[in-house]
């Protein structure tokens, strides 16, 4: 095995086979699972799982509606987490007794002249949630449909109309270039690039910080001189970058797999089917990949340069944190970016190499980015990435034997007279 791959394999094992990596891998899916779980729990606590009761002295609600909603078949109500049942009572007294016993969470009383007055009284001990209320209104709408159908004047199929009534309207909005689609049934699709942007932020920060630390630790452990006399500098830098990139991809793959499992489970068990319909246009995916690859190289290069120019691993984390803040700048300006997606701020941040990736994650979700802008950003990023790699090599060469010392940025750029390392291990006597 070549030394490049030996270094890469060793670095990969060193960083992946430890507790902090396993924690990092589990953290994002766990965060998502706990967020979804909390949402489900909150909804369940708010709406409860006990049925609603109703008393209908007007006889307006036909038995067919009651049967279909409670059977959970064609007319199943799809709103909210809980699919509540509806229980008919002969009298208010019977409904009240059921409420007091906790069999039902509330009951409605339709006025005897409901057809004329449309009056409904709601009786409860604790107010039902909005979700539960909205299910009752859907129930009434279905009841109304049933009346229309029974009147014989019914041009559409019952299934189609029931679906519209139970699910509400579904207006699909497409951008002119067809890249973005807003569909009420998949509301998260337009937010997906934003979520991906956040994933990138977490991934870049965690892996790039590890990269900077890997080089700073090498100096701190004093192993760099042994490495430099065993392996070519290019193989050391290359091996470490490959290892940390592989570590990042492992982390990302694990996240995707775990999130897919969570989404699959939630959409099936809880009935949030829209979760499994979330999608992104292939051109948007391609744009993000084109921007992400040079962005990662740029970030990695800067972190390698940083790791070799600072005095110790702690300092690398501090300076790396500042770099990560710049990387996330578009997120702080999210409102301006979304509202004026072709404004100077949005265009400027999309062209500035350090903020390109997150800018595109925001912009592709909310607007159509012109081809020239994408091309210009990718070109700038590729050039910047090449510059960062050069800077990394320069920093490695200058900084590898400076134990506990910083490399001046003017030296890195070659504008200082002091173009060679000092001699920390050979201090001259005054």
């Amino acid at each position, binding site marked *: 095995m070549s*030394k490049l791959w*030996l*270094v890469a394999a*060793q670095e990969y094992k*060193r960083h992946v086979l430890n507790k902090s990596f396993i924690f990092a891998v589990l953290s994002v899916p766990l965060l998502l699972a706990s967020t979804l779980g909390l949402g489900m729990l909150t909804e369940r606590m708010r709406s409860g799982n006990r049925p609603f009761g109703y008393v209908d002295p007007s006889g307006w609600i036909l038995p067919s509606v009651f049967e279909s909603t409670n059977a959970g078949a064609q007319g199943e109500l799809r709103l909210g987490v809980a699919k509540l049942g509806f229980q008919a009572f002969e009298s208010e007294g019977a409904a009240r007794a059921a409420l007091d016993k906790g069999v039902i969470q509330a009951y409605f009383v339709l006025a005897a002249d409901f057809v004329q007055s449309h009056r409904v009284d709601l009786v409860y001990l604790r107010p039902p949630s909005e979700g539960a209320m909205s299910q009752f209104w859907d129930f009434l709408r279905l009841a109304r449909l049933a009346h229309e159908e029974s009147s014989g004047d019914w041009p559409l199929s019952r299934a189609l109309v029931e679906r519209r009534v139970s699910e509400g309207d579904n207006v699909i909005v497409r951008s002119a270039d067809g890249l973005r689609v807003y569909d009420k049934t998949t509301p998260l699709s337009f937010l997906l690039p934003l979520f991906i942007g956040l994933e990138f932020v977490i991934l870049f920060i965690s892996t790039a910080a590890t990269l900077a630390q890997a080089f700073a630790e090498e100096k701190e*452990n*004093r*192993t*760099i*001189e*042994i*490495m*430099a*006399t*065993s*392996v*070519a500098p290019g193989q050391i830098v290359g091996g470490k970058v490959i290892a940390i990139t592989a570590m990042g991809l492992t982390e990302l793959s694990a996240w995707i797999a775990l999130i897919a499992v969570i989404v699959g489970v939630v959409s099936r068990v809880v009935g949030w089917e829209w979760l499994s319909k979330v999608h992104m246009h292939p051109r948007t995916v391609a744009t993000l990949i084109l921007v992400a690859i040079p962005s990662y190289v740029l970030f990695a290069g800067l972190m390698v340069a940083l790791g070799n120019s600072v005095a110790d691993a702690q300092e690398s984390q501090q300076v790396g944190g500042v770099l990560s803040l710049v990387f996330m700048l578009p997120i702080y300006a999210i409102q301006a970016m979304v509202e004026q997606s072709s404004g100077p701020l949005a265009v400027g941040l999309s062209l500035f190499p350090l903020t390109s990736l997150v800018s595109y994650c925001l912009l592709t979700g909310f607007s159509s980015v012109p081809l020239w802008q994408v091309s210009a950003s990718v070109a700038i990023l590729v050039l910047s990435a090449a510059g960062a790699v050069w800077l990394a090599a320069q920093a490695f060469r200058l900084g590898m*034997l400076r*134990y506990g010392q910083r490399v001046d940025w003017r030296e890195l750029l070659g504008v200082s*007279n*002091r*173009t*060679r*390392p*000092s*001699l920390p*291990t*050979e*201090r*001259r*006597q005054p």
Partner: protein
Amino acid sequence: MNAVEVNGIAKSFGSVRAVDDVSFSVHGGELLGLLGPNGAGKTTSIRVLLDIFKPDQGSVAVLGGPMTDEKKNRIGYMPEERGLYQDLSVERCLVYLATLKGLSSADARQRVVKYLKQFDLYDHKDKKVKELSKGMQQKAQLINTIAHAPELIIIDEPFAALDPLNTQMVKDLMQDLSKQGAAIILCTHQMHHAEELCDRIVLIDHGRVVLQGELDQIRRSYAGNAVLVRVAGELPAVAGVLDAQQQNHSTRWTLREGTSPQEVLRSLLAAGAVVEQFEIALPSLEEVFIKVVGQSKEAVAEGRHV
């Protein structure tokens, strides 16, 4: 063929001339002492030799030519700034570093285990490097230097942090490796170790070679007109002796200019003394070092080179 040929190398850092016109060589089976005070230019010379720094002028030939990646596998280097991966187990760390020297994993493991046993570190092989004592880390570092059976070994201050027992063990090891044909460069400022181990020395000060040659010849050339004498009973008075000083179990006689040791010996025998010891008093390497470095300092202060 010499294992190392350094010819007139010079290296500056900014305005500081760290190494200036340094030349030396070492051949297989030889133990060369690269000596000098702190900051003299020893480590810079070694780093130039190992191709970590490019020389401003001069040339270096290692194992028959310029340094290559393949040749790095045939060199063992223990830098003054010690370093191993602190969070790895001792065995894993050493096996990894040995594979970077071109050994297969199995071969590396076999050799590392052998040396761990030899250095009494086998029971600590699963400990993290940072859990070892300083002396143990030093021994682990030595294993890293020699595990791949290098033809050229460069060791910077190998005895720092070692107790007398381990110091002797390392000395024996270096002599064994030298007998097996390895060329060894020992950088140190501890003269008694160099005196005990080295065949030849190169003394560097202020970036320049101020003395080099066979150790015995150097000591002879710096010997003053003095002899070490021990006789049974009282030492008789002898003509031509300027000064007498007790030195261990002998007496050191400093001779008057023009008086030869042979004349003194004849006078002693003529005086009926039973001579138990009579030898030319050679200076220790430390004394030579102090003298040469002192002269070098004076020369630098006066603005002339030695």
